């Protein structure tokens, strides 16, 4: 596809949102386009960055992600302090979080993409990620429908660093913790390895600004997984397979309202559609990539991993974006629990990935 007609189609969708839905949703679509273009243009892959660190001792991707977390926190935490109506990404530390983050980190390596990675790769036309997206949505819906059972295994109240300590101490503590992680990564990779490349720096800077814009516009931090679950919940409800009124999660007033209204009014859905569009626009300007054909077994394993990834992302109260980026950058302790658990899962996932020849 050529970029010009694609840009015209994206502009038409923007004006449709602007005229018929809401100005905010049109603005969030543009933010999503920027996110997709950045993720695809910089190849800012959370999954690949972790894999490169473990398998090649290449720290550039992980250091780029730490830079993103620091920059996003520097923008988001003051915003949370100035505007009390803005919400941090506060998930409860819980058994559900521990299990979910570990399984998510494991499955994202097999599926070769986290929440944002699946979106931008699907937008670029990577076959496995296009196939995974509907299963990710189904898994996310099933996880949300079961979340109360998982929470019954044990939880404590969410902890927000900005609320507890104020903006300055929360931001300083976050930067210190990120610096400590960065030094650990450098020690593991070896001090002679290059720290960063340009694409990780501009990718981190652009994503941090876009994540802050998302927070200012939507009132919530950037998320991916909720929207996926909402799409599947709408379909399951419409075909009579699911009764939201009988489910503890989907019968909550906010979720009931979002089930009844169009997904074009849902903030997460609209940024995700934007990410797909932005990634498609980047891919349209490049020669078509040739992807290694997968065997039937690899397809089956990859699709199952996508389903599991969706389910576990709900248990973990977010993926690399909703829990790690948005959690840590808005001062949620659950983001700091998610990170090591998902990384531990990744260590197992890399072995499974090799076992099936990905």
């Amino acid at each position, binding site marked *: 596809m050529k970029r010009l007609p694609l840009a015209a189609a994206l502009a038409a969708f923007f004006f449709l949102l602007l005229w018929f839905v809401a100005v905010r949703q049109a603005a969030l679509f543009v933010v999503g386009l920027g996110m997709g273009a950045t993720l695809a243009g910089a190849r800012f892959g959370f999954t690949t960055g972790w894999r490169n660190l473990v398998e090649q001792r290449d720290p550039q991707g992980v250091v780029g992600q730490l830079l993103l977390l620091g920059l996003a926190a520097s923008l988001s935490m003051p915003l949370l302090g100035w505007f009390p109506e803005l919400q941090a990404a506060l998930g409860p530390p819980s058994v559900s979080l521990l299990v979910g983050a570990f399984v998510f980190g494991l499955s994202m390596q097999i599926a070769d993409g986290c929440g944002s990675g699946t979106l931008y790769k699907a937008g670029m036309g990577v076959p496995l990620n296009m196939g995974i997206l509907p299963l990710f949505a189904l898994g996310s819906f099933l996880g949300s429908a079961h979340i109360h059972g998982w929470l019954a295994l044990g939880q404590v109240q969410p902890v927000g660093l900005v609320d507890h300590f104020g903006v300055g101490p929360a931001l300083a503590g976050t930067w210190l913790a990120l610096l400590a992680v960065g030094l650990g990564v450098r020690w593991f990779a070896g001090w002679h390895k290059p720290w960063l490349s340009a694409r990780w720096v501009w990718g981190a800077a652009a994503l941090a600004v876009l994540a802050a814009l998302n927070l200012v516009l939507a009132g*919530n931090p950037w998320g991916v997984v*909720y929207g996926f679950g909402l799409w599947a919940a709408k379909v399951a409800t419409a075909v009579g397979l699911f009764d939201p009124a009988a489910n503890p999660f989907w019968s909550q007033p906010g979720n009931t309202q979002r089930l009844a209204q169009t997904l074009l009014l849902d903030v997460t859905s609209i940024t995700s559609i934007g990410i797909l569009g932005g990634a498609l626009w980047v891919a349209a300007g490049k020669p078509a990539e040739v992807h290694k054909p997968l065997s039937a077994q690899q397809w089956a394993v990859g699709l199952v991993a996508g389903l599991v990834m969706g389910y576990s992302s709900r248990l973990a109260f977010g993926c690399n974006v909703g829990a790690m980026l948005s959690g840590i950058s808005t001062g949620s302790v659950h983001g700091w629990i998610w990170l090591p658990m998902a990384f531990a899962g990744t260590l197992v996932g890399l072995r499974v990935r090799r076992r099936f020849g990905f």
Partner: protein
Amino acid sequence: MALNSPRTRRTAFWLLLLGLVVWDLRHSAPLNVWREPPLLAAGSGQAPSGGHCSSPK
């Protein structure tokens, strides 16, 4: 155009997404642009209306 060509797969993917959006519009509550949310949540004084994956409910 071969059925399993990259272009066919990509077209099918986008048609599926477009179909979901159109189906959803037909099966959801009508839009009311006079009750649209504020452009900026920051400074609006209103609680955010969107869901987030970090929320347990």
